[in-house]
């Protein structure tokens, strides 16, 4: 099982010097929390959750100090809720900063394409 790093500016994939991942011969059955920095796996029984972070240098899994955790019938496929207020939005939206109000449109078919304009908060002038 090999480990690759992803450079999100260039898109470059590079096999890490720490690759392959020791002790694993297949993809681990871990579930990644999309809102945090944790991966969740299970112990040998149905009631034990094990929490990991990933070492940013090696890519290896590191068990957290509060792990393992006993929870009845936890071992299964995990689904994570998104906290209120962090849900994605669709259509026009606006956000406030100290000096400006930004408003922009979110295109449903392409999350990366959006346009924005900035207006000074006092409405006397506007620039971005």
């Amino acid at each position, binding site marked *: 099982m090999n480990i690759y790093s*992803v450079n999100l500016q260039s898109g470059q994939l590079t096999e890490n010097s720490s690759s392959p991942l020791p002790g694993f011969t297949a993809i681990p059955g871990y579930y990644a929390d999309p809102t945090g920095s944790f991966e969740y796996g299970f112990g040998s029984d149905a009631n034990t959750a094990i929490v990991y972070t*990933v070492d940013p240098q090696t890519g290896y899994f590191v068990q957290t100090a509060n792990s393992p955790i006993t929870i009845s019938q936890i071992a*299964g*496929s995990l689904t994570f809720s998104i906290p209120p207020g962090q849900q*994605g939005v669709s259509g026009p939206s606006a956000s406030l900063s100290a000096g400006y109000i930004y408003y922009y449109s979110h295109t449903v078919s392409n999350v990366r394409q959006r346009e924005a304009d900035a207006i000074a908060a006092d409405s006397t002038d506007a620039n971005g």
Partner: protein
Amino acid sequence: MALTREFPLHSHEVSHSRSRKYWKALIIVFALTSASVPSVRAQLQQPLVFSSAGAVASRNDQTGALKLVSGSPFTAANQSLVIDVQGRYLFALGANSIRMFQISDATTGAYQEVTGSPFASPVTNQPAFIAVEPTGQYIAVVNRVGQHPGDGLVETFQIAPTVPGGPALVPIFNSTTEIDSSPVGFAQLPNNKEFLIFMGPNPQSANPVIQQGSEFQALSIDPQTGFVTGLQLNAADPERGDSFAMDPQGRYYVTGTQDNLLEFGVVQLFGIGGNGLAGNVQLPAHNYPENLWVDSTGGPSCTSLRRISINPLS
């Protein structure tokens, strides 16, 4: 994790009259949008994790700790649960059907299966993935088996909270969308606007490209009609599709393919939405990317590294 960016990609000077026009237009568009599309807010009161085995736990996203909620465990769905964007329901794959659960307590996530569950349409056949859309009115179901040999099929259902007999899933008439092959991987973007399908070869297809190839589709559900949108025609690629994974934060996805002539594997990374992010690694001959896994670590900076783990054994 903030899913919407709080900064403009570009900005420019705006005159007084133009700024007033912008505000008028913005208010009008907001009013129209709010009149036609239900408000979208996740109504669960704390971060939760739902297990297919029945457990529900609150989670601390600073420490990773999980804590059992009152009443847990609940009914085991025995399949991955999908959360309604308004926090009212959970959905799970059933036997040629979709199971629907109602969340009765938005704080604990307590749930029970609704009367009449599971639901299906005449074309629901080996469902493999459930997608939601941002308004919470519809779900899409990706079926492994379509109406033509080797094809898959996407259909949609309306989430109907108030029909006689209780909450239900109602098939959308004529919503079926045939896809060129059976999927090998799926993902829903965190903002729920699109869902991604990566398909493997379909030897029974009349299209010679997909017979040994692959195909990627990014689809949406139209919140006005409930129909599937975004299907790209003639999208098949000659490389055999093996594996698929998406960054849990929805910034990129990774595909694993096999070159059909020289028999080497390729792991390729793409930005979502065509933002130019792309890169690949060629694996040694006869090593094919059987499975892909992407972790969720790191902060919001695009300069930080993400790691993927790849099993090159075929």
